[in-house]
């Protein structure tokens, strides 16, 4: 509050100082007036996004990362990222420092393209990262936190499963894992998506003992596109790149997947019954989806869809197929995305795996949280 006084009783220097101070304050106020709390600007570019990582082969650097999930451990928030150097890096999201790093055992055929953090199938209290070792046709499981090694070498998983083939329980190119847990946090089922001819989601029952991991193939969801005499079955999939379990508004669990080469999102009951397809066209005001790769469910049962082709992350109402918001625009600069692979949410912050730019981008957006998803696994 500013007071006023009559002339002649004021120290001149003090007056000038006040005036300059007032001017500076006015300038600061006007210059900051343009700032808003929006997470994107008019073009869709993320504003105030934190960038973690860069291109390279050293710790904290990435070469085409193709799998990421986030988790909380001892009060800190971390991301696990796998890239085309076959390394898994565990990065502290607060500092950007890598606190754990290993390499998958083999990578001659190719590198993993997806991973998920969930409780271990043996010990619910033990967090684990399930790695879709895509080109080795198997799933690797490592205990979290990852050990730290300045020059990570090939590391054996605590267990691995999967073999090449087209029969039930076999894999061609596994892409993602989701874990269904019970009220005690124990994993009851593992869902594994794949492509390359087996485009489907295989469901395995967890029958592990406390000392021995045992999983049993139970059923498959979806069918590979055009394998039925060239016709397109209602539940035909083409490259399901990412899967997640969701509790819908009716309180029922369902499987949500990105049918990426069909440019759509699928909702299935856990028994494999198709609930609905969403996309490629959402509404007339937004661009059709192009190669949706990643999916994350938020607390309000809406979903964040990461579009590899569209270079954008959209928030979608899965019941109404309505686009609620979009984040990011194609580009190389801060706040821009290049072929993003996936995204996750932790502590109210969206973490995008900006694969084409070899980095993570992290930002806050109003109304986005994903705490409830901890309950059903997949993205604890």
């Amino acid at each position, binding site marked *: 509050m500013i*007071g006023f*006084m*009559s002339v002649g009783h004021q120290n001149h220097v003090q007056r000038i100082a006040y005036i300059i101070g*007032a001017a500076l304050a006015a300038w600061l106020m006007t210059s900051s007036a343009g700032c808003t709390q929006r997470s994107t600007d008019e073009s869709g570019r993320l504003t105030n996004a934190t960038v973690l990582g860069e291109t*390279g082969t*050293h710790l*904290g*650097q990435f070469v085409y990362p193709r799998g990421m999930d986030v988790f909380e451990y001892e009060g800190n928030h971390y991301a696990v990222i796998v890239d085309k150097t076959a390394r898994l890096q565990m990065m502290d999201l607060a500092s950007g420092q890598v606190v754990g790093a290993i390499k998958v055992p083999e990578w001659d055929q190719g590198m993993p393209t997806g991973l998920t953090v969930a409780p271990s199938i043996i010990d619910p209290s033990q967090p684990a990262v399930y790695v879709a070792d895509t080109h080795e046709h198997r799933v690797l499981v490592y205990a979290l936190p990852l050990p730290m090694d300045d020059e990570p070498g090939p590391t054996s998983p605590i267990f691995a499963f999967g073999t090449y083939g087209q029969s039930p329980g076999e894999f061609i190119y596994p892409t993602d894992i989701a874990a269904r847990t019970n009220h005690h946090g124990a994993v009851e089922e593992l869902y594994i998506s794949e492509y390359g001819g087996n485009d489907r989601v295989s469901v395995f029952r967890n029958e592990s003992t406390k000392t021995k991991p045992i999983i049993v193939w139970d059923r498959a969801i979806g069918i590979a596109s055009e394998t039925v005499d060239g016709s397109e079955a209602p539940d035909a999939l*083409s490259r399901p790149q990412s899967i997640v379990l969701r509790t819908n508004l009716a309180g029922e669990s369902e499987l949500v997947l990105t049918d990426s080469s069909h440019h759509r999102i699928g909702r299935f009951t856990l028994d494999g019954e198709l609930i609905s397809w969403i996309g490629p066209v959402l509404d007339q005001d937004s661009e059709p989806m192009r190669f949706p790769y990643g999916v994350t469910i938020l607390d309000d049962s809406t979903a964040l869809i990461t579009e590899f082709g*569209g270079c954008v992350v959209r928030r979608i109402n899965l019941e109404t197929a309505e686009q609620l918001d979009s984040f990011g625009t194609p580009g190389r600069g801060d706040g821009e995305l290049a072929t993003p692979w996936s995204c996750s949410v932790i502590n109210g912050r969206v973490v995008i795996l900006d694969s084409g730019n070899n980095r993570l981008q992290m930002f806050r957006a109003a109304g986005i949280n994903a705490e409830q998803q901890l309950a059903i696994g997949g993205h604890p």
Partner: protein
Amino acid sequence: MTPPMSTLGSLVVGPIQFNRPVMLILIVILGVLSVLIARKSLAGLGMSSRWSALIIRILAISMIVGAMAYPVYRKSKDAVGVMLIVDASRSIPVASQIQIDQYINRAQEGSRQSDDLLGVITAAEGAYIQSTPSTHTRSVDRQFIGGTEGTNLAEAVNLAIATASKESSNRIVLITDANETDGSVLRAAQAARAVGIPIDVLAVEFDYTEEVIVDSVQAPSNVRVGDTTTVKVVITAIKPAAGRILLSLSGVPIDLNADENEIGKIVELSKGQNVFNVPVPVLRRGPQLYNAVFEPLAVLDDQGAAGATIGDSIRENNTGMAISFAGDEGIVLVVSESEEDSADLLATMANADIKAERITAAQLPSNLPELVSYEAVVLVNESAFSFSSTQQEMLRQYVHESGGGLVMVGGPESFGAGGWIGSPLADALPIRLDPPQKRQMPRGALVLVIHSVEIPKGVFYGKQICNAAVDALSRLDLVGIVEYQGFSGTDWVYPISPVGDRSAVRQSIQNLQFGDMPSFDPSLQLALQGLKNSSAGQKHCIVISDGDPSLSRNLLREFKQAGITISAVGVNPHSPGDTNTLRTMARTTGGKFYNVSNNALATLPQIFVKEAQTIRRALIWEGEPFSPAMTGVPTETMRGISGVPNIKGYVVAAEREGLALVTLRGKENDPIAAQWQYGLGKVITFTSDATTRWAPSWVAWDGFNQFWEQHIRWAMRPGGSATLRVNTEHFGERTRVIVEAFTPDGQRLEFANFRARVATPDGKGQIVEVKQVGPGRYEGDFDSANAGAYVVNMQYRAPGKEGNVLEGSAQAAVTRPFSSEFRSLKTNTPLLRQVASMTGGTVLTSDASASDLWRRDGLSKPITLTPVWLAFAMIGIAIFLLDVAVRRVRISPAAILASVRRSARREQDKSTGAADAMRLARTKARSRTGDDESRARKNRKFEAAPDAPAADVPIALKGETESDSPLAKPKRAIKEDEKPIDALSALRAAKQRAKDDMKEL
């Protein structure tokens, strides 16, 4: 405050730099003007207010003028960026490479701070960035380092300068033995000095104390069959040693020790140079390629007794090569895949006493020296796909540099129809393989669908194969390229359009991103639509991929229905499923599938050439037989031929401008037979064939033998009428050619005019100036620094007796068996010291703990400049606005305090009853609107009583009139009816009174 200093065209005051300092003069000018103006305009103010107003006004002017002077904020950066250049060439022993890595791991820690950057570049034949400057980089992580048989430190230093961070003080650390084979590190160091980057150096110390080098293998350039020649092997040993010499002739071992049951010969080497003469009988004609290898066994002590195993660590320098030519008369090499195609030609040459050998393309000599021993090469109905690009380039060199003759005879697999368009050999032909622009012909359309090439140097190979495919097309053909680009999705990189001069499509290929497409469908859909809409006779699509994108089988059926074939090239498929996807793609559409593994990448361009060839069949003309028209150009080749029989087919090509001569023409003046001189050699093309397929009448024609004999003899390298002895010798990185020439009667050949060229290993070739240096003696020299074979071809003309001209040719071949990289036996420390002293760097020691790569001394901190003119301008404007207010408004801490107290009182008021609150509010409202009687004492502006004392309480919104001002007007008394009834009215009234006051002034 930092004293002002000037940079070039700028003025620095403290952290602010004015880039247009001349504008600051306006501060003085406008300042003086302000003072002058203030004397009048501010005269109505009191002294203190006047000075305040003046100072503020000048301050506002200063800020605005300062903004016009384009101020920038200078901020110096404390981070240090170290660019490590690590010599990865073969001259560095493997053990030293490991030590280097360990040294860096220890030394790079030092005083490193969190924002310090480390970048790594390796230097060998080329320089490659292993890590860009980054805070994350902690060690040397070697990725692709390129060829290691050379050292180009200059390129590495230049690369380090280019990639040095702008946000840090930079230092280059050069770790090398400083044995350069290419470039000049001193010149690069000058560039580093120019940009203020010091180069610290660490010499990789090694000393090969037990090294053995095969210095040279020498053999006469020309020998005769039946002679016994002497091959001289020169070996240098650092220490006395024993070992075995092995010598082979064109890959066949020569038995040097007939008495014992082994082929090699055990020899003892004394310290220094050792020469061994090996007599070798010349049993066959042609090039004699001698290869000597020394196998070290043991060092010898002073008494000559064998000791420990010799530590000869560089095995590459244990070999040497030499070439002799054993010649008699010229031989022509006929390359033909079937005997039938070349049978009549071979018969013709046999009748004409021209010795000829027929081989298939697969049997073509693999090196130029061998090929040079032939006088001419005849390609009969040969496809470009049968030859590697290296062989094609070798054939071109054979003609251009070595003076050999080339005759290309047509057939369905030849010329443009055989994929020769755009090949290295196409430049050597006297016709253009593209059809004439005016010619109306069915054309082909080709679409390339590109997926990411996930192999080492994948982008390089990807672009190379696209260029190869496009090069194989004719200018009239249509080409399009589709790829998946991350941002814009699947799109045409080059929409289907005529190839033309290839510049546009080449530019598009250069811009390819090789995106990782998730699905083939969008790309194939585009290709299908593009090809369907194109007007072409043959339509084809080539897909290059690892096969893991998803694929719609329905789409393949659409291709099949449209008659468009797809050939799929699988590069390193990840699984049988991927292979199956690509195979399905090819099989469904009628194309071909190629499975290319990592070790067969070199075949990729050839595959694409062959594939592109599938749309080139349109270049073949076949129809009613007709007799090609003779152009009547008087040439040796057509001497005595007055007409030629009918042909019924040929490959369409275009006439080449320049010195090419067309002797026979076909439909629409297409060239059938053409010839020209290309470099030192001669080339003939005949676009029809020499069989009954297209020229049945020719085979039966009695002029057939004469026609072909004259053509082949014209193309053959001229024989020599003089006797030449050719020797070569190395000096430094150059080779000298010495020719001793004699006339047929044994006299020394004088005043001969030599034209000489040397074919170099890099395929470029160079002219050799051969000059007479003595009676019958001629010399020339050329650069021979690179490892490989050099073939010198010389043609001469000299005056003979009675006005005759003596002419002929001679060849010589010399070899550099290994790169200069392997001659380095000691570290070039003086050069490194020079680099360090030139740039202000230091010479590091091998003690890593004593080497702090991050020390700040000797580095100039980078300054980042942030424009702040807007801040200046805004502050200036704000002050300017307040300049007005300062004469009306007063700010008082006491007033603020009083206001705070009032607020506090209001809080207390809330506790009173509602009626009391209302009353209080009304009282306050009156107070604010002037109803309160005390208002007269609070607001002198509106107070009528001039003698009332000033009260030190806040009251007014407007300026004031000083009672002691000489220009002050008597204050008006406020009448009862003028009293405002609320705040807004009070303001209006005050404003009106102020206006009245101004009028009165």
